[in-house]
Every structure is written in C-alpha cells, then in structure tokens.
C-alpha cells in the first residue's frame, strides 16, 4: 500500500481510508486493487472495488476471499 500510494509506511494507519489519506485518490484506489488482485491471487467485483474505500473494509474483503 505504501508502494502504491508512494507514501511512507508510518503514514498509513489502520484507520486509513480514502477520505483521510490525501494520496488515496481514485487512480491510487484502482492501482491498489490491481496490486491486491495480483498479490493475493483473488478477484474483486466492481462493487467490492467501489466499496473498499478504507483499510478496514479491504481487510474484511480479503479475509472473506482468502478463507
């Protein structure tokens, strides 16, 4: 995530979300999901990508997929 957004790891807290992290814009959002799909070998639906706008939600989405 720090790679995708090009920000230091320390800046990304567990409560990071599209609304509180400046670098998390719509382009970075898609790049994040491109990277997640590749790294975790999962497939997100359009709705999931739309709704996964915080670290917490992404964590939940991933947990459901990987299980």
């Amino acid at each position: 995530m720090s790679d995708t957004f090009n920000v230091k790891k320390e800046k990304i807290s567990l409560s990071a979300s599209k609304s509180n992290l400046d670098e998390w814009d719509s382009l970075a959002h898609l790049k994040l999901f491109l990277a997640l799909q590749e790294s975790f070998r999962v497939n997100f639906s359009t709705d999931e990508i739309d709704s996964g706008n915080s670290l917490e939600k992404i964590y939940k989405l991933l947990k459901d997929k990987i299980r």
Partner: protein
Amino acid sequence: MIALLSNINIEPIRGFLKSDESIFTGYNTYIADILNHKSVLYSDEIDKIFLFLDIEELLGDMLFKYPSDNSLSVFENNLDEIFSFIYQLLIKRNNAVLVINNVPFISATFISYLDTNSPNVTFRDFVKIYNNKLKQLKSDFSNALVLDWERIVLNEGINNLFDPKFWYLGRMKLNNKAFKLLSDEFSNLINSYKGKTKKVLILDLDNTLWGGIAGEDGLNGIKISEDGIGKAFRDFQKLIKSLKEIGVILAINSKNNESDIDEIFQKNNMMILKYDDFIVRKINWNNKVQNLIEIASDLDLGLDSFVFIDDNPVERQLIKENLPEVCVPDFPSDISYVKSWFLEEVIYKYFAKVYFTHEDKNKTFQYLANAERKKLSKSLSIEDFIKSLNIKIKIYINLSKYKQRIAQLTQKTNQFNLRTKRYTETDIERFINSDNYTVFALGYEDKFNNEGIVGLVIILNDGESLEIDTFLLSCRIIGRDAEFVFLLKVLETFKEKNIKKVNAVYIKTKKNGIAESFYSDAGLFTENKIDYSVDYEKLIIFLENKTLYDGEIINE
C-alpha cells in the same frame, strides 16, 4: 525519461518501469500531446516514448457495425492520419526512440464465425491494416521500434491480461501481470536497440545438449536423435545453431573427459552442433566458476557479456553466487519445454535483435529522402487536427433528465474543474428550477467516438453580471478546444439579457493544475489569479475569434 502515451489509461505501468523515470500524459490525449509542441514529448528530458494503442479503442464504434469495404477504408484513413502525427513526432524527436505496439486479432466479435468464414471484409482485416502500418513505419524510421504485444497476448492469453472491471472503473484495461510483461518487454526492446545484449552463450553438455551422461552412457547411449525425447535435444541444438548464425558466440563449460566429448562430436551423426561451432571449450574437471573466468579472459570480454546454461541447479547457483554479472537462467525441469523456454527466457531476454544487419541500424531516415510522400508536406497543425475531428458539440440547457450525470460530474471531476464544488442531484434540481441559475450540460461527439455528457457549466445571473459558479470538463476531451466553444455558446444564450460583466473564480487544488490558465486563455482578466472578470461583449468577441468550430444549443 520515458513518456507514456496511450488511448487507454496505462498509468500503473509506471510502477513497473523501475530503471527509468516515466510520465503518463493522460488517457487518450496522445494526439493532442503530439500536436502540441509545448507538451512534455518535446522536452529534452524525454529520450524514450512509448505509445500503446488498444485496437478496440482505435476501432471505436466500428467494432459494433458490420465491417465493410467502406468502414475498412474509413479506418485506414483514420490510421493514416494518426500515423502522420506519429511521423511528425519521429522527425521532430529524432534523438529519441519511439516504441509502439502491434496488436493481436480481436478474440471475439459480434459477427462471430463470420470473422473467419466470410469471404468479405472482417475485423481481422482491420487488425492486419494496423499491423501493416507499423511495418511501413519501421521501414521509414530507425528510431521507431515495434513492441510485440501480439506475441505476449498469444503466450499469456487475453483473459489473463485484460480485466474489464478496471476499464469501466477507470479506463484501464490491463491487469498488473500485463503491465509487468509490457514493461519487461519495453526494457528488453530498448536494451536491444542500444546494443546492450549478451555476446556469449556458454553451455553445459550432459543433460543440456543431449540426454544422459557422456562418461556413462557413451557415444551411442546419449539421447540425441529423431525419436522420442532425443528429438527435443536436437531441436534445442538447432536453435542454438541459429543463434550462432546471427552472431552469438558459443562456448562449452562442462565437467567431462575431453576424449569422450571429442568422440561424440566426431562420431555421433545426430549432433547438430559441431566441435568448431564453439569458440572456446572448457571440458575438464575444474570448478565451473574457474572455467568461466578463463573463458572471459580467453575472449577478452567482461563477465556481463555471458549467459550460462546448465541443467544442474547446484552449478547454476555456484555461478550466480560467485559471478553475479553472468546471467544464469533456470533450465526447464522437463526437456519437452526446452524450445519455448529457450525462446522466451534466453533469446528474447538476452540475445534479442532489433536490427537485421548493422547497415539497418545505421540507415538514416529514408523517409525524409522520400520526397514523394505527401502526408508530411502538409505538416498538420493542432488547429488542422481539431478541424479534422468533425467535433459536434451539443449544449443542453436545464435538462432535468441529465441531473444524475451532472451531479456525478461535480462529484468525480478533479482535474479540469475550476472551482471543485460538489453537488448532489437535489442541488442540481434546485438550480434547474431556480430563476437565477442556469445549468448547461455539454455533449461531445467526434468522428471517433460519442463521449456523451462530459462537461458542465452552472451560471448565476444577477441581472447585471454572470457568475460562473461551476465550470468543469472530463479530461478525455481536453486539448480539442471544446472548453472555449462551450463557454462561448453558454455566454451567447444571455445575449438579449443586457449583461455587462462576466465573473469567475479559480480555486486551486492539488489536482486541477491543468485548468489553471483556462480563464486567462479564454480572455478573462485577473490580478490575483483567483478572481477573473471581463466585460461581457468583449469576452464574446474574444471567444468568437478564438474558436475553430461551432456548437449547437438544445433547449428542450
């Protein structure tokens, strides 16, 4: 630095192009970027330009119409125009290298089996035309390189490279695997262009050039034949021989008795490679690291000129650890795959050629000498280009049925948005029904595409002056002067209203730098670069002179 141009959004490839800084000029802005000589493409920092074109987007609506001789020639004309722009770029930037992709056949089209069973024009002909243009480009310019996207798609499969979700979410079509492969291919191609390829292929013998072990299986026991798996080794040898034909130096580094090997080369008539094909032969029981160092000194070449092939992972590891400059690709565990492995992992990676001969490389621009070509004599300006697009602007006034799209535009547009005010559908409805506010939605269509509603202006009329509450445009139509036509047509609707002044505000955000000069370009004045103002009549005259085409007002 690399400039990335495309008719789709390929911004994420930047993350994979590690060796170089890169800049993506924006979704589908490549023609405007080429024609605008002030664009980043013409800055000296840029020494490599990568133009990635998606064939389906080039076809646009043609993809949904039955192909015909007529549509094929329309397509070819469109391509000729695009290529004439590319030619201009190549001439102006003759100190940079341009990489452009070829394209695979479109895997499925609505004409289904007719695509392969019709005696008439099919979509395959469109693809062939595009790829033939590249061939012409290649023969005209030595600083143009064709990236073999067709081969990558054939190897990996469309479904493993394209992800339609990202197209609809953000005009991206490719997934990260595709971005990775494209960036690797781009780097290999550039390395090859710059002559940074390897010079020497060093080979092990047992279980590499033949199956089995010379010292144990003997002259006739080793597997090298026309039958069974022996044929795989023969095919491998044939490929190595062809590499030698194109100038790669071969060497042997093997733990064996030299006499056993001599015998095989002399007497086994199934061997494709001959003793003399190898310039240096280290056949002994020494450490292979030691042998390799000796080969380098015999040939007087640096270690970074070598690729070492060995089926034994322990030997490979030894070389990797001790001589990290030497390239040591893995060897397939099943020899049946040797051919595809050798092609992709060795030849394309280390011995790829861009030029057939040395003369090829040194040939200068034949194109320039060829004065008969007309396309460039009429050097197209950006104005000519804009006119040639046949842009149709439609401006819808207070149209409630578009309120959802309009609200969405205010929510999502970050770049060409002068004030970045966000509105809901209810807000828009309120403006539409109010006496002071007018909502103008912009519909854009050109000969390639109908983009739909892509712009918005909201005007507040206080009786004496007009205040531009909102002015925004989707980025995909920037660079075609639509913003000026839009503004002019909007203002003209107030002609009978006795308006004295037009006022506007630009509020800078992190993302709307692209719109910073818009109001001054449009003829409004400012002292603080925030508040803009000008006399109404003057502005109309200024814009009338500036705009190249007209728009249509639709008042339903």
